[in-house]
């Protein structure tokens, strides 16, 4: 088990460096990003006090050095926690992101949690009550939900909630609570707004999970040992929970890593539509102004989250299913 963990850890580190290289290329890709534009602006101004600003800019972004050296500076800064400086927001990227990371984690983790619980339970129900009314309803909504892009789900839910319930739901806090210190009242207020993005995201991912769980359980219920257990008089409940459930869960855990990627990327769209204070809208704004250092840093953070999440998911899977360790 230990050798497995070490192997996975080394993969993670190697992947991290490879992906950081790709991210750096993406950062340098736009020919007219905000730093270049600012420098051109300053150069055309040509006043004397512009000189020092130009030099500071060149120093911060290491523009006078060659590209590979720039990459080394950037990646070493990244590992140390210095993510660079955003020209559009005039702040350190670190402060910009950290403020929003907490909310991002909250939305993503609660969506994942809810999605898994709903997915497993509904999938089991669907499989054990196959062709029932509930099964058909869940399958129908599952198919439609999977076929709708996440931002469209968010838009539709926004429309339905404002038309039929008169709610104005955008952002994560009411205006009074946005910059207020944390208190019980603020948490309650947060919950009033949190349900919408979490509902959308978890519904979307639960749809996929329900499908997998349902197919898997259906296949397993036809196995020989289920037949034997039934003929021996074992309660249906025990059959499902003690035997079938454990094996049916397997594919869901093995795709947990991929699911994390889906939730992060879907979360970006929902956050943009609902205007949540997470890193999704920040990514969009940074890309629209071509503030590539901010955009690249956010991308890297998402990827680090993914790598760590995949790593943990792999470890969990190996712990549960011993066959993986010797692959």
């Amino acid at each position, binding site marked *: 088990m230990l050798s497995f963990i070490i192997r996975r850890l080394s993969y993670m580190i190697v992947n991290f460096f490879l992906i950081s290289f790709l991210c750096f290329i993406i950062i340098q890709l736009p020919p007219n990003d905000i730093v270049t534009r600012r420098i051109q602006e300053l150069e055309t101004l040509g006043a004397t006090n512009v000189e020092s600003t130009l030099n500071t800019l060149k120093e911060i972004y290491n523009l006078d050095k060659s590209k590979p050296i720039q990459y080394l500076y950037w990646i070493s800064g990244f590992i140390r926690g210095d993510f660079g400086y955003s020209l559009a927001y005039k702040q350190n990227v670190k402060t910009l992101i950290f403020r929003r990371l907490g909310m991002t984690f909250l939305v993503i983790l609660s969506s994942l949690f809810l999605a898994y619980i709903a997915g497993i339970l509904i999938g089991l129900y669907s499989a054990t009550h196959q062709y029932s009314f509930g099964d058909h309803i869940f399958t129908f909504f599952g198919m439609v939900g999977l076929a709708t892009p996440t931002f469209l789900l968010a838009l539709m839910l926004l429309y339905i909630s404002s038309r039929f319930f008169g709610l104005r739901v955008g952002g994560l806090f009411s205006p009074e609570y946005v910059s207020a210190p944390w208190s019980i009242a603020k948490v309650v207020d947060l919950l009033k707004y949190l349900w919408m993005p979490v509902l959308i995201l978890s519904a979307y991912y639960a749809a996929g999970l329900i499908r997998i769980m349902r197919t898997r359980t259906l296949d397993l219920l036809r196995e020989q040992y289920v037949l034997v257990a039934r003929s021996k008089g074992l309660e249906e409940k025990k059959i499902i929970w003690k035997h079938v459930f454990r094996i049916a869960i397997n594919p869901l855990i093995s795709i947990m890593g*991929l699911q994390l*990627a889906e939730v992060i990327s879907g979360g970006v769209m929902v956050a943009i539509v609902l205007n949540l204070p997470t890193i999704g809208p920040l990514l969009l704004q940074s890309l629209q102004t071509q503030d590539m250092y901010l955009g690249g840093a956010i991308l890297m953070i998402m990827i680090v989250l993914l790598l760590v999440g995949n790593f943990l998911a792999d470890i969990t899977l190996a712990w549960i299913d011993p066959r993986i360790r010797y692959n």
Partner: protein
Amino acid sequence: MAFTSVVHKIKKKLLNWYKKDLDTNPSELFKKVHGQSYAMLLWKGFKGNKLALLGLILLLIMFICSILAPLFSPNGENYRELSRKYAPPAKIHLFDDEGKYYGLFVYDYTLETDALSGKRTYKPDKNTILPIRFFIKTEQYHLFNLILLNRKLFGAVGGIWYPFGGDHQGRCVFSRIIFASRISLSIALFGATLTVVFGTFLGTISGYFGGIIDTVLQRLIEIVISFPRIPLWMALAAALPAGFSPVKEFFLISLVLSVLGWGGLARQIRGVVLSLRDSDFVLAAKSYATPNKRIMFKHILPNILGVIIVNATILIPLMIIGETSLSFLGLGLRPPANSWGVLLKDAQAIQALEKYPWLLIPGIFVVVSILSFNFIGDGLRDAVDPYKY
């Protein structure tokens, strides 16, 4: 001299294709064993799945509508009337207020501006009745810039009718949706084709040659699969310089979308190729010193077609979602290009949604097209299921 040798080559190819060698041709053997060709068996299995048939029919309808778009849209793609800005969809009636029967018809609009608040409301004008008929006569227009037509499939006689209402420039939402389907569907197909070509190529090479190429490609595939899709699409799309012509944008967006999709396909193909590499017929071909390229095309490719087709039906919805999301964010296609995502961008603000909810209707088309592809994909997967027969 060169000409005659080329003619000889073509003749030989035609003869080879025609003279199906019954003993070794795999499709003829299949027919002998199962009584039907593989394609017929597939079609029979596919037909049994009602949802898959529904998906196929819906898709055919969409394709016909998008190809013959000018015929199906009551108003042109860019016809605009500022007096119809944000006009709501008209209600369709059968009887007017006095109970007289007119067939299907709508009332035309009058725009009333409240003098005090400046609020504009559209009131149906009960005096003008626009009957809805099929194959109505209109002004002349061009189909494919070639054929001159003067009839449209349906529309209102004697006036302008916007079935799904008007957008912020007073254009007909319904007509724009139909024209937008051209771009959305073709980006999806083109992107999926790129992805399939790329993924098949890399997967086959990785599985067939093995060794270092395989290891390197496997690591690459692992990285590509674990990327968060939408953020990376956003970053790549934003990295493209702006101000490209719509045609160039089309190709670049397809390229961006296919960059991330090829990983899963390549992995599956690699698995199949690995198992085929040591099979008898490949070994026999190798013992004849058949060049690798021929082995890959003639022997391995027919066997991975099943995997490719099934994956393609998953990839196309992915491309639709990707293109719609990117255009919705303003990073993909931009106006004046017209796609479902661009149309949905108008519906982004909550104020617009509350007041003009018909701007969301392109979303229904997106969902229906993705559902059709999903149903077809399910049907295909069931039909190729080896455990069925």
